[in-house]
């Protein structure tokens, strides 16, 4: 009998069921989409923040002081120690290798060139542009195009295995060169594949593939410093502790958290004779910006959950209130309050389940669309969310119906049947 009542109620009152069902479906869809976006936004914004460039720097352990004013390196090139280029792919073998977005080695050299002032040498910076490297079975591409995304080239980027170079735009203007021209460096002619504009110190030197810089310096395999761009977790009090003071489980937890400090520690382990440090300007601010945006989205998600819960309850209350006459008839025929309430709750449960399933699917699609159109990448939905969302949908639907059901059950059947509600 109960099953039949529910079935007939759905069959005969399509309009009312549809209105309530749509409200639940939309509410669940919005809630699902917002939860998915809010849980994923940290990751997405963290990737966007990588546009600020490298947040870690690796230098040789016994390095002499940088003598750099306004981005111009005044250090004699013979000075100081070097890292070994062959060690670099090991970065992709560390524990947090998947958090390493990219790295770029740098080797500044100073070269004589006939075109410039005789008295003044030009500085040349050797680096990777987008070099293909292999570590174990992994193939990956890294270089300044990943770590320094604000560098713009007019013309084309040189190939890492060629001997083409980029000319900083200040230097290019001074020498009046265009992409495609030649420039003489250390007695050899090199093709200028493009003009580099960075809005920073790299506007003045020549930027060349690393191998070319090593050849000019006469030190194959030498690298002065490596910029590493890594996805990190915002620093907290635990992250600031000295790894040497940590014991056992604490040390493991520190080592296995992607803090800038612990990634720097692992970089030091991966590359022999190196010193890795976070670039505080980038690494520190990233954390605050990230936590602000995450906090904002969390609060907005709460607002969205509240709005959808309210919409669902309002729709349920309306749907039940409209059926007072039916309640009156049932009670006049001898139904108790419990069986009337059970009928309404049964219907609410069915509606919540159907609306919850359809809404979850819709919300997942919505989240994917938002991810694709805003962040150009997928927003993945944790399947664990499904039962949680379904449970929330049922609870909210019940809570929304409860008040209306109470009132409907209490109503005197005589008035309800006479239509004097």
């Amino acid at each position: 009998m109960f099953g039949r009542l529910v079935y007939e109620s759905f069959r005969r009152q399509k309009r009312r069921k549809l209105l309530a069902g749509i409200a639940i479906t939309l509410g669940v869809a919005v809630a699902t989409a917002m939860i998915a976006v809010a849980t994923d936004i940290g990751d997405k914004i963290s990737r966007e923040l990588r546009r600020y460039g490298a947040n870690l720097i690796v230098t040789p352990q016994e390095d002499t002081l940088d003598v750099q004013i306004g981005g111009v390196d005044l250090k004699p090139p013979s000075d100081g120690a070097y890292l070994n280029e062959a060690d670099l792919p090991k970065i992709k073998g560390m524990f947090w290798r998947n958090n390493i977005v990219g790295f770029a080695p740098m080797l500044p050299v100073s070269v004589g060139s006939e075109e410039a002032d005789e008295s003044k040498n030009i500085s040349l910076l050797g680096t990777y542009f987008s070099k293909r490297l292999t570590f174990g079975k992994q193939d990956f591409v890294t270089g300044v195009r990943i770590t320094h995304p604000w560098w713009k080239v007019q013309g084309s980027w040189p190939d890492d295995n060629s001997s083409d170079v980029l000319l900083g735009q200040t230097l290019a203007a001074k020498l009046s060169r265009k992409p495609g021209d030649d420039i003489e460096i250390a007695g050899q002619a090199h093709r200028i594949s493009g003009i580099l504009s960075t809005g920073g110190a790299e506007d003045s030197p020549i930027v060349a593939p690393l191998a070319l810089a090593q050849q000019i310096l006469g030190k194959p395999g030498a690298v002065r410093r490596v910029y590493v761009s890594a996805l990190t977790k915002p620093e907290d009090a635990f992250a600031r502790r000295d790894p040497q003071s940590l014991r056992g489980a604490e040390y493991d937890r520190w080592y296995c958290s992607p803090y800038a400090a612990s990634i720097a520690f692992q970089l030091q382990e991966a590359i022999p004779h190196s010193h890795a440090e976070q670039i505080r300007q980038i690494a520190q601010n990233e954390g605050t910006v990230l936590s602000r945006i995450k906090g904002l989205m969390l609060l907005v998600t709460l607002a969205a959950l509240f709005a959808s819960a309210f919409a669902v309850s309002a729709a349920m209350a309306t749907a039940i209130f409209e059926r007072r006459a039916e309640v009156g008839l049932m009670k006049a025929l001898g139904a108790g309050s419990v069986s009337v309430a059970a009928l309404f709750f049964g219907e609410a449960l069915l509606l919540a389940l159907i609306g919850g399933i359809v809404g979850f699917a819709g919300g997942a699609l919505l989240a994917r669309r938002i991810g694709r159109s805003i962040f150009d990448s997928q927003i993945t939905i944790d399947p664990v969310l499904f039962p949680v969302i379904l449970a929330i949908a049922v609870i909210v639907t019940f809570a929304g119906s409860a008040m209306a059901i109470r009132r409907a059950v209490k109503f005197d059947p005589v008035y309800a049947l006479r239509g004097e509600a």
Partner: protein
Amino acid sequence: MSTQRNSDLVNRRAAKPHTSMFLRMLMRAAVLRRGRAASALLAMAVAAAAATAMLNLYVDVQAKLRKEFRNYGANIVVVAKDGQPLPADALARVESALDGHGLAVPFAYVMARTSDGQSVVVSGTDLDQVRKLDSWWSVTAWPNASQDALVGARAAAVVSPQGKAFDLSFQGRTIHLNPAGTLRTGASEDSRIYLSLKDFESWTGLQPSTIEIAFSGSSEEIIALVQKLTPALPFAEVRPIRQIMEGEARVLGKTRATLAAAAVLIIATAALCVLSTLIGWVFDRRRDFAIMKALGASEGLIGGFFAAEAAALGAVGAIVGFGVGVGVAAWIGRVNFHAPVVPRFNVLPIVFVGSIAVALISAVLPIFLLRRVQPAMILRGE
């Protein structure tokens, strides 16, 4: 006597034909069905509050996040051409162009020698301003006395490994410095020594050659400021720091886009909630509708009556909701950004018109559906 009273009434009604009855019906409808009217009003107010809060946040989040982004430091740099010092009034000119919307800090650099002949870069600057500009600097203690220096972590290992006072010489002139604190940034600052500008000038006799500017504004505003500063400072090169400018524009753009998507979803849900509540409310009153029709009211009048009721509900709901929404936005601002979101009154007309529009749609839709039904059918309770 009674005829006279009657004619008085007739006269009074003639002067204001329907208005008083119309208002009376509106008022009585709201008072008699308090519960239903209140729940419709609640739905309206919640929707308006959600819309207000989201719009307020959307408008204000840029200003709030921009403040956070300024912690990244300078986004414009002024460098004197050919290594010459900047003229003395350069900083004043930059500050007048900034007009209080940012921070400008002068830097002077020289390459000095330590007592054992090593080269080290020494910079003179306004240390109090640097502290505000470069908030990421990790400093053990900021110098405040004369001849106190802030020594970069790597420079410290060279010039005073035990934290003792040291001498630096530049073009034959020597200065005696106390290492007051150690500086750690992970960048080239670690290899430098920072002094107050006063000490630096009396030692080297040189003026600042660089001004770093942290300007709060969009990329377009930064470019505009650079274009304004370039003719004012003909002796220097003014350029935006693209690394900072572009990173900020990108992250801010994505955040606002996400927030906009969230706002659309939330406002749509809230509007739907209003729609379903109001449709139910009007359907519920089909007996009123039938009686009015049976008494000879025209369809236009009935439509007008329900529309006026809905509009009044929308207006009251919008104003109440606006107040609540501003409060919610302010709370979110305080919790997340530690500064309340300022109420934006230009959001009010949008919320107001939107609420009334949604209310009108949800009132007119059921009327339209009921129009074809005979009043007798409704009155019989079918």
